[in-house]
């Protein structure tokens, strides 16, 4: 009797025929996609907003900062490795990820589900905007853009509205992307930690939007609130 009640080593036949999954490249490329959003693209965004904030000080300082950046050694390889390749990868892989999802906010209109959809659309707007922005300010100016080039672009109401939309889209995408990163890399696990991460990421997104719009104001109204620093 006792021998019969001991569990026997019987593997269910259907379990035996299903092999364990093995890691494939999609895990690696997905993690690279999420990482490039922070480093180097996010890091470059911080640098870009910082350098452009010189427009809030004076046109001269802005031009000096621009020319400093435009004359770094190994400029083109650095631009390619830190900006162009990561951006192209992040953009196109992002579109691939988008193509594998099927949004359903009309049925399930929850906050995070809205964020899921917004992240995709703002990503697309940001990608198109950045492509145009790089073409106009980097290539049309032969990499020698200065304060007056940007001011000239922004004097056109159509381009101005494109900048405003682009800055808002980029800021949202970066802020929400930080939150996504905290989830995807397991930095914020618990519900409470997730909420805190959402607040921090949201605040960073809002900060970028505000600073970005102030920089636009600097060019549109020739408004230099920090001019007294330079005197």
């Amino acid at each position, binding site marked *: 009797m006792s021998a019969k009640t001991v569990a026997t080593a019987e593997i269910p036949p259907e379990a035996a025929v299903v092999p364990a*999954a093995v*890691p494939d490249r999609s*895990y690696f490329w997905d993690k690279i996609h999420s990482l490039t959003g922070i480093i180097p693209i996010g890091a470059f965004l911080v640098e870009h907003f910082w350098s452009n904030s010189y427009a809030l000080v004076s046109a001269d300082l802005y031009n000096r900062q621009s020319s400093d950046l435009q004359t770094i050694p190994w400029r083109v390889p650095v631009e390619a490795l830190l900006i162009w390749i990561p951006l192209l990868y992040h953009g196109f892989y992002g579109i691939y990820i988008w193509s594998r999802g099927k949004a359903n906010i009309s049925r399930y209109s929850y906050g995070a589900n809205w*964020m899921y959809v917004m992240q995709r659309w703002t990503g697309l707007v940001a990608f198109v905007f950045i492509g145009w922005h790089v073409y106009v300010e980097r290539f049309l100016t032969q990499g020698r853009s200065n304060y007056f080039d940007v001011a000239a672009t922004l004097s056109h109401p159509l381009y101005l509205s494109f900048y405003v939309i682009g800055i808002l889209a980029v800021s949202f995408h970066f802020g929400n992307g930080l939150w996504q990163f905290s989830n995807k890399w397991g930095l914020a696990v618990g519900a409470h930690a997730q909420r805190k991460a959402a607040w921090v990421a949201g605040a960073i997104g809002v900060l970028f939007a505000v600073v970005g719009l102030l920089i636009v104001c600097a060019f549109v109204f020739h408004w230099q609130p920090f001019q007294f620093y330079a005197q």
Partner: protein
Amino acid sequence: MAEAKTILVRVKRQAGPQDTPQWEEFSIRWRPNMNVIACLIDIAENPVTSDGRKTTPVSYEANCLEEVCGACAMVINGHSRQACSALVDHLEQPIRLEPMSKFPLVRDLVVDRQRMFNDAKRMRCWVPIDGTYAIGPGPRIAPERQEVAYALSRCIFCGNCLEVCPKVNEHGDFVGAAIVNQVRLFNMHPTGAMHAHERLRAVRGPGGIQECDNAQNCVKACPKGIPLTESNNDVNRQALLDSILGWMFH
């Protein structure tokens, strides 16, 4: 005597996987405390549509009627949920019943959720204890840990989390929050943890944790209140550490 109250139920019906779906409406006599399963039982007793046409009884799955078996998941008024806990008095009428859309349809409201079980096997979601000799009792588990694991262990494989997930569809192969949660559960178990690396390798495979994009509908849809987003993020952390450490040391 007051006239008997009736309920209108519209069911999306399909005789088989290849047939075209069509809606049929049924008028059912109201009784107190009815749930959607009670409506389907009434339809089975008298399968006549509200315009008097005789039809076949609606096929559906149900078993426990208390939200612990997972069988009766369906899309009710546009939301994926268990039919047993969907009380008629709380639902907008006419009540619309549809089969889940993310699983192969069998007939009417019956779908085949076998993929969840296959994925659980692919992700090694069990504790292997069978062998040729007795290995004695397992290690004790601290009550705090038991409390967390208990919440995770309540999964009933109903598939609501897959149904509401934008990343579970015909273009992708995401296994869904339920399976990721199982990986976390079995990795938490001291005996299961002996195979944690195998599970974490599997969960980085096709359709693995990398597919989760945090729309977080799963946690809202879960009838068992399992903290699915926590499980996703925790497995993300474990899988990442395992992959980095594996890359360096294995």
